[in-house]
């Protein structure tokens, strides 16, 4: 891993088109500004971890899903609208 020391208002450039700027440092954390083309997605790491966790949980259906499906049909399935 590359480790760089930056002061507020200093930045690093990644791949020529992504810039990460240190906006400020407080006792609660570091504020970063990110300049990137619209095609580059920027997410907090926690979001990926949370989605991975939900994916893992979606693999662990306990018992047949028919019971859950029947419950779903009985309570509130709405006809998918035409997109």
């Amino acid at each position, binding site marked *: 891993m590359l480790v760089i020391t930056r002061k507020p208002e200093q930045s690093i450039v990644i791949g020529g088109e992504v810039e990460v700027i240190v906006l400020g440092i407080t006792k609660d954390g570091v504020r970063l500004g990110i300049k990137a083309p619209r095609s580059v997605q920027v*997410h907090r790491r926690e979001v990926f971890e949370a989605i*991975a966790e*939900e994916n893992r949980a979606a693999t662990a*259906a306990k018992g047949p*899903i028919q019971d859950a*499906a029947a419950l779903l*049909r009985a309570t509130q399935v709405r006809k998918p*609208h035409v997109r």
Partner: protein
Amino acid sequence: MTPDPATPPGTSPFPEGGALLTFPKGLVGFPNLTLFNLFEPKDSYPLKFLQSTETREVSFVCVDPACVKKDYDVPLGEEEAQALHLESPKDALILTMVVIPEDPRKMTTNLAGPLVINVKTRIGFQIVLNADKFPLRFPIIVQD
């Protein structure tokens, strides 16, 4: 016309035996699984299985989110729209992952990580959305 909740709409773009789908980037947390069979077991509407064809023991339960949240729309980024080669919004099939706990009344679906599939090319991606706006655990069953 009042929709009959017990009747599947019968407009599934895929054959009954299932459809082989490719997720070139895998799924979040499962980057190495790229080939899946999407099928609906008997009496399971509206739930579906996304079964890995590479690792038999991995299969995901998913649902068409339109069945559980009518106004759900996926804001597709430029990168994703390009990768999907979508010519028309009609070609997009959206699915969300479903978690069925021991008490199925507490079922949830993840609206922050939808699967968007081009039904023509059968190529899909799992999209990562802002979890502040799209709940990771949206309750499916409306509790009275």
